[in-house]
């Protein structure tokens, strides 16, 4: 009767490999379900997902460097000279 091979549940290594696809909403509904089923029973992968989210949030807070005032002056000078041409 077992004509269709049952899908094995995901193991941690597979779940970790799928984290970005999950966060990007790129998993098929079926794979999404398998992923979420794994997470529901695995505190470590749940923690890993939280760490990925924390990493993304931290990247979102990375500020650009301050602009060197001399560099700004040089560029504005360049702009003025270009206008006069």
């Amino acid at each position, binding site marked *: 009767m077992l004509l269709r091979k049952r899908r094995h549940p995901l*193991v*941690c*290594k*597979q779940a*970790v*490999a799928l*984290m*970005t*696809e999950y966060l*990007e909403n*790129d998993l098929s509904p079926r794979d999404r379900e398998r992923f979420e089923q794994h997470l529901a029973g695995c*505190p*470590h*992968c749940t*923690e*890993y997902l*939280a*760490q*990925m989210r*924390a*990493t*993304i*949030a*931290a*990247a*979102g*807070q*990375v*500020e*650009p*460097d*301050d*602009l060197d005032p001399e*560099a*700004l002056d040089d*560029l*504005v000078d*360049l*702009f*003025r000279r*270009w*206008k006069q041409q």
Partner: protein
Amino acid sequence: MGDPDVELLDALRVGDDAAFATLVGRYHTRMLRLAEAFVPTRAVAEEVVQDTWLGVVKGIHRFEGRSSVKTWLFRILVNRAKATGMREPRNAALDDGDGLDGRFDAGGHWAEPLEPWASIDARLDATEIARRVKECLPKLPDAQRQVLILRDIEGADSAEVCDLLKISATNQRVLLHRARSHVRGMLELELGRG
């Protein structure tokens, strides 16, 4: 749609110095950060960004408002950075750099429990964690660094990044995954595993 930079471009078209200075103030160092992910040195990155600004003022009539001003600036920058010459490819690391080597047992389960980061917020404020992420950037392989900057720091969406870097959606996602895993691994070394 509500792009605050469009007014600046309008002023720039009529030669407004102050508008130019504002635009430079807003984007110069962000463009420098992105350029550094393409070219060999900071000095070359500075040349590329200066060259980009010249391209912007000369080509301002070509801005059609189909993308945001920011995306338009980044597109000019990326094209120039690529034309300038890529960095020397570095030797591929032995592992993926995600800190996951040897972390799983033969069955693919975590060999040891993951050290929770719950204490992160208590130990370090967000600015401090962001500073550490910034320090990780030069350690990433270039393609990963480009995608991470655009997606997670600049907030571009995946379609924009594919278009800017001329890569497929799958490639974009793989690079993003590796970059984030890499940064997570570097943060873990400092924050997690005691």
